[in-house]
């Protein structure tokens, strides 16, 4: 049967469209010219400037502190929530639970940002690392929960019964069977949460205080108030880091099979 070529052509165009800006960005990070319109030869000057910039390092530190702590907390909360949603799914409590968890996924970030800002202001909480942390956990929990829930739905619970049948207490069967089996899903959720936290701008923008600048906030001010091409270098670096991390986790996932 002759299949139409049209979808393949569109797909190729779409992929080209998706990568064009990224490729130009990477190329420009090696372009020492101030304005990207002229190519002035290959140079690493922007990378050097990047490493010398204390604000960038500070922002990286802040971002990582928040990302690691938010991921840790949201993984624990999200996994527990996913378990509850799957195990007790039909009850009214879980239906409410599910609606609540679903909210951060569908609400535009600006709404989350402003509502959290209002809440912190009303409660008199000073804006800073703590508020950013609380905000990040809030949206990360939902993503972790959904990821783990997806894994649970393919989960054959008769292995838990088998563990109980062989003498394991409820806690032992959770520790020795449920959690190890769920680990790939939990790790996937954790990676997702980490990425979302590192990359978040809008919500962080609303709830950050004067001394707590994350990397996205730093990038935004660099874009808004004069745009040195350091940003290209920074983005290329970020892209390389995330790419390597993803490829590594894929390699690990394949090895464990």
């Amino acid at each position, binding site marked *: 049967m002759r299949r139409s070529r049209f979808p393949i052509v569109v797909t190729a165009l779409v992929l080209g469209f998706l990568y064009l800006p990224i490729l130009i960005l990477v190329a420009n990070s090696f372009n020492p010219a101030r304005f990207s319109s002229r190519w002035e030869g290959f140079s690493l000057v922007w990378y050097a400037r990047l490493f010398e910039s204390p604000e960038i390092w500070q922002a990286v530190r802040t971002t990582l502190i928040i990302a690691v702590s938010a991921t840790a907390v949201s993984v624990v909360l999200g996994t527990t929530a996913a378990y509850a949603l799957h195990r007790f799914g039909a009850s009214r409590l879980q239906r409410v639970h599910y609606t609540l968890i679903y909210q951060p996924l569908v609400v535009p970030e600006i709404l989350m940002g402003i509502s959290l800002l209002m809440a912190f202001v009303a409660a008199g909480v000073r804006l800073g690392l703590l508020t950013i942390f609380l905000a990040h956990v809030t949206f990360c929990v939902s993503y972790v929960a959904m990821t783990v829930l997806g894994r649970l739905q393919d989960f054959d619970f008769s*292995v838990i019964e088998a563990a109980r*049948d062989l003498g394991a207490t409820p806690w032992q069967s959770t520790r020795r069977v449920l959690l190890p089996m769920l680990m790939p899903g939990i790790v996937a959720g954790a990676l997702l949460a980490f990425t979302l936290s590192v990359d978040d701008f809008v919500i962080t923008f609303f709830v950050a205080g004067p001394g707590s600048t994350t990397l996205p906030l730093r990038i935004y001010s660099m874009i808004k108030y004069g745009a040195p091409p350091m940003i290209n270098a920074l983005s290329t670096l970020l892209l390389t880091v995330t790419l390597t991390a993803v490829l590594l986790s894929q390699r690990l996932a394949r090895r464990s099979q």
Partner: protein
Amino acid sequence: MSNEFLEFRGVSKRFGPIQAVDGVSLGIKKGEFFSLLGPSGCGKTTMLRLAAGFEAPDDGRVFLDSRDITGLPPDKRKVNTIFQSYALFPHLTVRDNIGFGLTIARRPRADIRAEVDRMLELIRMTDQAGKKPDQLSGGQKQRVAVARALVNKPDVLLLDEPLAALDLKLRQKMLVELDLIHDEVGITFLYVTHDQAEAMSLSDRIAVMSGGRIEQIGAPAEIYESPRTSFVAAFIGDTNFLEGRVGECLDRDYCRLDIAGLPGILCFNDKVLQPGQPIYLSIRPEKVHISHDRPEENAHRNVLAGAVEDVIYLGANTKYWVRAGGYRIQVLRQHDRYFLDEKPLRWKDPCWVWWHADDGFMLDHFRKADEGLLAVPPQSVGEPINGK
């Protein structure tokens, strides 16, 4: 009741509007291979889960070795289950799977190693000890599941349709293996299945279940040759049903029956029958004979004239459905001689069917709906098979 090792006393279990098990009492002897046989939804799996401790009965008690285990959780019962999906732990090797129960029981490492090695030898998988479940075939997974349960030396082994996921050839092989394991290990087996061939070939006794109740308990031969209810008669193998009243009793052994549309039918009187009593007679197809010519006279033969309505040739035997006096009689004829009959019986041929009065059996309990369980070819395109 003292030699009942595993005992259910009046257990009931309901799930929402469905009464899965309805006041069932059952006693299983020590060392016995006991099967619960019935269609899906009959309550057999629920009974198993009640024994394992995954469900608690709404009513009634469960006893193991004279101790009341009704309130005990599964990890506290000396009972182990083989699940239909095997439920092997995917993140553990074969060795660790088998040793799981012993590890939980905190047995010394050397002991665990020795026991697991013994089991690996029993199931002939010593070379595969380091593999993970996803690297095993269906039959291998099943053997690991069995080993994982047996290594704990449970009082009772519960098996939940363990062969259902296997193809035919493998199933036959595993049937033999299960039988051997039971003989070697000597543990009480409680086996749940909907497959009568499995139940009949493996069990010492069978309980046939339907709608949450037990229809009949007995050894396989007893269940097959002397079913007490129409359900048991129709669910196990095939049969013919005739309905009528007792006419007169000729002597102590035989009675004549009045069945509409048929000449006087004789049956063996193994229950004390009264004239005028309603009666349900059942004859298995393999006990019925068929031929072109009228058979020789014999005082205890029931002979009917009819016409062949359907023929299904199966190689080793042939099934006929014969219309005789308003009834469809199923006949199973074994081909024990090559072309013994020079003129094969074909569709619409007139013929004679007969059976010995001793071969028919009377049912205690008859339900018209059970006729739907019989294998009957449809009369026309679009007609549902089995009247469903």
